C-alpha cells in the first residue's frame, strides 16, 4: 500500500475514525496522571516554591505551539506539492489549536512571572517571539476566514504559511539581537541531553509533554474530520439545490 493512500479522504476518515478514540483516551489519561502527579505529588522547589508547578502546563503548551506551526508548515508543503485535500484541511484545523497553545503559554508565563520576576510581562526575546508567533497564527486564520472558495483559500494560506515560516524564524533571531533575555534557558535541552531539572520534576513533565502531544493529535484529527464532513455536507446541499432547480 502506497504511503499517500492514507491521504485519500475516504481512507483518512476510516483510519482516523479508528484511531480517534484511542488518541483521546491516551491523551486525557496521560494528562490527568501528569497534572495530578505534578500538582500534588512533587515537592516544592527550594527557591521558587509551589509556583514551579505551572511548568507542567507552560512548557508543554509552548512546545506544542511551535510544533503546531511546524505541522502546518509540513502540511502546507504537502498541499503545495501533492495537492491532498486532507493535508490542507489538517493545516487549517491545526491553526486555532496552535493559537490557543501560544496564548496558554503566554498566560501561564505571565501568571508565573508576577511572583518570580515581579512583572507580568517583560520585553524578553522569548516572550516577544511568542507574541510575534501569535500574530502569525492570527494572520493565517484570518486569511482562511476571509476567502470563500476553499481551494483558493488552501492555496493562498499554504503560500502564506511557507513564507511566514521564514519570517517567523527570522523574527526569532532578530528579536534575540534586539534585547537581552530575562527568561531562563531550556531545562530540557534535546541536543546535549544535560537536564537541569531533577528527575522528581522531570518525570511528570515528560508525561505532560506526551499528553499535550497526544491531545494535539486528537484535536487535529477531530477538527480535520469535521472539516471534511462539512465539505461533504456542502457538496450534498449544492447537489440537492441543483436537482430542485432542474425539477422546477
Amino acid at each position, binding site marked *: 500500500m502506497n504511503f499517500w493512500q492514507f491521504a485519500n479522504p475516504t481512507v483518512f476518515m476510516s483510519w482516523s475514525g479508528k484511531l480517534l478514540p484511542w488518541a483521546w483516551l491516551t491523551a486525557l489519561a496521560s494528562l490527568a496522571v501528569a497534572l495530578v502527579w505534578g500538582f500534588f505529588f512533587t515537592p516544592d522547589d527550594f527557591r521558587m516554591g509551589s509556583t514551579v508547578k505551572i511548568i507542567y502546563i507552560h512548557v508543554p503548551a509552548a512546545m506544542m505551539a511551535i510544533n503546531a506551526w511546524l505541522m502546518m508548515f509540513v502540511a502546507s508543503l504537502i498541499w503545495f506539492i501533492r495537492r491532498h485535500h486532507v493535508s490542507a484541511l489538517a493545516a487549517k484545523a491545526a491553526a486555532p489549536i496552535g493559537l490557543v497553545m501560544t496564548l496558554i503559554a503566554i498566560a501561564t508565563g505571565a501568571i508565573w512571572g508576577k511572583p518570580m520576576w515581579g512583572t507580568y510581562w517583560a520585553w524578553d526575546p522569548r516572550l516577544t517571539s511568542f507574541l*510575534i508567533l501569535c*500574530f*502569525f497564527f*492570527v*494572520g493565517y486564520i*484570518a*486569511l482562511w476566514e*476571509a*476567502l470563500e472558495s476553499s481551494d*483558493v483559500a488552501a*492555496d*493562498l494560506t499554504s*503560500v*502564506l504559511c*511557507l*513564507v*511566514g515560516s521564514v*519570517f*517567523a524564524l*527570522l*523574527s526569532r533571531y*532578530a*528579536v534575540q*539581537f*534586539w534585547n537581552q533575555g530575562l527568561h531562563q534557558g531550556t531545562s530540557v535541552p534535546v541536543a546535549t541531553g544535560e537536564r537541569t531539572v531533577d528527575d522528581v520534576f522531570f518525570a511528570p513533565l515528560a508525561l505532560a509533554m506526551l499528553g499535550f502531544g497526544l491531545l494535539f493529535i486528537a484535536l487535529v484529527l477531530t477538527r480535520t474530520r469535521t472539516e471534511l464532513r462539512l465539505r461533504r455536507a456542502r457538496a450534498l446541499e449544492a447537489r440537492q439545490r441543483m436537482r430542485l432547480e432542474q425539477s422546477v
Partner: protein
Amino acid sequence: MKALFWRDLKLAVASGGGVWLTCVFFAILVVMIPFGVGSERGVLVRIAPGVIWVAALLATFLSLDRIFASDAEDGSLEVLAQSPLPLEALTLIKALAHWITTCVPLVVIAPILGAMLGMPFVSLGPLVLSLLLGTPALSAIGTFGAALVLFVARGGMLLSILVLPFAFPTLIFGTTAITSVLSGSGEMTPFLMLAGISLGSVGLMPFASSAVLRFGLR
C-alpha cells in the same frame, strides 16, 4: 518590462497625488508624537529612530492596496498575466514601482523629520542609509501581501494584519542600526542584516507573490 515600469510610475503619480499623500501621512504621524509624549528633547531623541521607522512602515503599507487593485478592476491584470512577461518579473516591477513612488519620497523627507525630533546631525546619514537599505524589503513583502488580499473582498484591514508581522526583523535591524550609531558603538552588523533582508526579500518574494497571483487568477 520597461514600458510596464513607466506605466506604473505614471499611474502612481497621476492618481490624485498618491505620492504626496503618503509623504504627508508619514509627516503627520511623526509630528503627532511630540504631542503624545511631550516635547522634552531627551525623550524625543531617544525614541526618534523607532518613531520614524514605525511611521515609515505604516506609510509604506498604507499604499499597498494600490499595487494590484486598479489593475484587477479594469482587467489589465489578466491581460498582463497572459502576456509573455513572466509573472515573477511583473511582481518585481510592481514592487520596484511601489518602492520608488512611496519609499523614496519617505527617505527624502525622513532627515527633516529626524532633525525636528532633535536627532543629532551625524545620525541623519545613518537614518537615511538604514531606510534606503530596509525599505526595499518592505515593498517586496507588501507586494506579496497585496497579492494575497487581492482575492478577498474588503481586504484593507486584513492586509495590515498579514503584512505587519513580516516587518518585525526589518524594524528591529532598522532601529538598532541608528541607535548603534547614536550610542557611538558604530557597529555595522544591523546595516548588513538590513541589506541582507532586503536582498533576500527582493530576490525571493516575487516568486511567492507570483505563485499567489497564479493560484488566485486560475
